[in-house]
């Protein structure tokens, strides 16, 4: 018979053995991870270069991804079983209530009116004239409906003691943070924000490297002066970025004041230049209606498609919701409070007003700008070939000084778009960590993941980025609109009278998202595939740590069966390891070994966790 001391010793020995096994598995996991990453990289490069999809290559890629997942799962075995506390709640940021009506409105308009308007509006209105203007109107109206639902939900949530920060938080309040609807909303909003940030970054690079030096030279500046200005612009961008991302809490008030100044300057200059454009051409709107009068049947579909395309120009208003914690409980209203002394409105009311007004102001300016550009009747081909059409038009019709002013407005628009979207994207990821979908240690690196994702997506090209941003944001906002129904009664059906507005908004958003298929089918396929993968990731997270390991082990086994058919006939067979001058022959065979070893090790780990470490209730 063993004494308690002996059994304790035996348990300790078993525990040490288990940890030794996990260490060994983690080490092997790193090797498998590196090999799989190399394999995936070579296979993807091969597929992109060959432009031909072979079944064998696809299966090899699936096998490599299975091996990659196994490598990750094995690598985190040890830290996962030793650092359970990393999933505990993280320290919340202490709110600093400094923003009032004016700042919130300025941030809302600044985030809504971004640099894309200098590209999308000129090209779209010259190509589609009245249809483009109507599309702007409908996109603005759809956003207005969403903004109204935001403010309604904000009121309900605040009155019931909840703290709604950002649009997806409404879905979380309505259906819980562990719901797939919330997860889909959050991730699609994150994707839309990173694609918009990538688009803004792409435009900034284009402006910085190509457009600005040319404008400076045309305006008579020397090479040295134009180079210095480019560097100064880069430095300014870096300072503004750091101020917002790293020192945001410390300089919250200053950021607010700068934002008011920049937004006001931007609105006034765009409005003034639109007036100048119109005056130059004496508001010549000839042919504005005629291209579409002959064929009225094509209007509805064209209008729908174009509305979806231009939706990107409006949805920035939702940035306002993320300022909720940093805003004062009561605020004075510029002009109104001057006329009526002591006039103040509460937070719910001024959040409602700022959301709705930021959409309306953006809509008015966008339409005014579009019509004024149309009145110039510029050549579409020349416009398409220019890097940033808005700046090109200012140079051609208003002269080099106005072109320089437009360039500075473009910069302001970039500053007020890229930084908020980048921060919103980072916030979405860290919220997912707070909700327990990923470890907090990864959540703290959300800015890095976002930055890397932006860099990867920027390769996609302008059209792809615009369309995917629209698609993802329409899906996300559609779900947020439905949250108004879920918040009230916990389910969607049966619908009643009060559900009409959220239901119709959801319907319009989803129909508009589907309409993007007509412009670029691959974007919608990519978007839907991303949503399916997001759903899959959600299900994997819901399986729990051991469940995921079981799933990977099973998937490895199934992948082995699929990959074995490729050994003789396809896939990448030779891998070159960079920096080490090593070559791996028979990479497919090695992948099968990796998959087999991973499946065995993960299954053993489950047994050890259950039987030796007693981490479950079995």
């Amino acid at each position, binding site marked *: 018979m063993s004494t308690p001391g002996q059994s304790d010793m035996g348990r300790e020995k078993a525990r040490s053995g288990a940890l030794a096994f996990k260490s060994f598995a983690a080490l092997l996991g790193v090797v498998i991870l590196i090999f799989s990453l190399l394999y995936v990289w070579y296979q993807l490069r091969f597929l992109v270069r060959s432009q031909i*999809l072979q079944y064998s290559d696809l299966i090899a890629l699936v096998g490599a991804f299975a091996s990659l997942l196994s490598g990750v799962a094995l690598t985190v075995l040890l830290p996962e079983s030793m650092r359970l506390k990393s999933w505990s709640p993280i320290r919340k940021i202490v709110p600093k209530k400094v923003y009032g009506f004016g700042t919130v409105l300025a941030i809302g308009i600044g985030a809504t009116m971004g640099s894309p308007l200098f590209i999308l509006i000129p090209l779209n209105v010259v190509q589609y004239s009245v249809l483009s203007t109507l599309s702007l109107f409908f996109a603005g109206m759809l956003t207005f409906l969403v903004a109204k639902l935001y403010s309604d939900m904000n009121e309900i949530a605040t009155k019931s003691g909840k703290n709604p920060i950002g649009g997806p938080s409404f879905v979380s309040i309505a*259906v819980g943070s562990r719901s797939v609807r919330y997860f889909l909303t959050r991730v699609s909003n994150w994707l839309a924000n990173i694609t918009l940030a990538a688009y803004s970054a792409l435009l900034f690079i284009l402006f910085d490297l190509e457009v600005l030096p040319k404008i400076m030279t045309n305006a008579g500046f020397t090479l040295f002066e134009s180079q210095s200005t480019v560097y100064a612009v880069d430095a300014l961008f870096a300072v503004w970025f750091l101020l917002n991302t790293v020192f945001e809490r410390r300089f919250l008030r200053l950021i607010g004041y700068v934002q008011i100044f920049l937004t006001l300057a931007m609105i006034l200059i765009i409005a003034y230049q639109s007036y100048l454009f119109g005056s130059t051409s004496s508001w010549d709107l000839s042919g504005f209606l005629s291209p579409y009068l002959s064929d009225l049947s094509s209007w509805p579909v064209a209008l729908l498609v174009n509305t979806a395309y231009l939706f990107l120009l409006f949805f920035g208003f939702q940035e306002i919701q993320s300022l909720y914690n940093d805003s004062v409980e009561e605020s004075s209203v510029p002009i109104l409070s001057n006329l009526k002394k002591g006039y103040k409105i509460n937070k719910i009311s001024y959040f409602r007003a700022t959301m709705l007004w930021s959409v309306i102001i953006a809509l008015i300016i966008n339409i005014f700008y579009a019509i004024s550009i149309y009145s110039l009747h510029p050549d579409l081909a020349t416009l398409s070939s220019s890097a940033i059409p808005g700046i090109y038009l200012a140079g051609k019709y208003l002269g080099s000084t106005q072109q320089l002013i437009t360039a500075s407005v473009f910069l302001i628009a970039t500053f007020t778009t890229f930084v908020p979207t980048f921060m919103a994207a980072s916030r979405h990821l860290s919220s997912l960590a707070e909700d327990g979908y990923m470890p907090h240690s990864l959540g703290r690196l959300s800015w890095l993941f976002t930055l890397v994702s932006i860099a990867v997506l920027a390769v996609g090209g302008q059209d792809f980025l615009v369309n995917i941003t629209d698609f993802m944001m329409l899906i996300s906002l559609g779900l947020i609109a439905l949250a108004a129904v*879920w918040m009230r009664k916990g389910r969607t059906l049966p619908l009643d009278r009060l559900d009409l507005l959220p239901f119709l908004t959801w319907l319009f958003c989803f129909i508009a998202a589907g309409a993007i298929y007509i412009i670029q089918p691959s974007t919608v396929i990519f978007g839907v595939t991303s949503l399916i993968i997001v759903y899959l990731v959600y299900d994997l997270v819901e399986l729990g740590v051991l469940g995921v390991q079981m*799933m990977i082990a099973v998937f490895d086994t*199934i992948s082995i069966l699929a990959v074995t058919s490729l*050994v003789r006939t396809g896939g990448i067979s030779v891998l070159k390891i960079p920096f080490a001058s090593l070559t791996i022959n028979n990479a497919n065979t090695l992948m099968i070994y990796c998959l087999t070893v991973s499946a065995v090790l993960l299954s053993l780990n489950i047994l050890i966790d259950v039987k030796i470490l007693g981490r479950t209730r079995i």
Partner: protein
Amino acid sequence: MAVMQSSEDPSEKIANQILLDIKAFMIIQESEVKAKHTIQRLILEAHDEYVNRFLRLAGGEKKSSKTSHIIVAVGELILSSFLILGGLVLLAPFIANLSTPSQLYGYLSQVLLYLTSNGPLFPYARIIGFSLAALLLVSAMYTLRMASSSIKEAGLLVHSGAE
């Protein structure tokens, strides 16, 4: 008299209190989804032996064993792995923009070719196929057993004598 006795019984007193608490809990709920979420988090997933015993008793029906749950889970994981693989194979041509019928035909005929090809595991195809099929069948049986308990829980049973 019986009422008097029961009201003095401490078990019944507590049970009555639980009943009142349940009612109060449901009254203050804003949405059923949130209520379900709270119950799941704080009660159903509570790592407390007494709570689990209470839930077993309250549930009435005998729950399936842990082994059967694990077998069902493994079977479903196999099934979902097949579905993921099949889904990816069918999705790939659309991602890769194979849009013409001849391109799609070429791709799908490759799939058929590989499915009937002579890979290195071909000698073991019989035993591998049999093992997977047996696992899926056993899992299906346990899944059916769970379905039967779900049907009972849903009240989808015809009582004897009922018209």
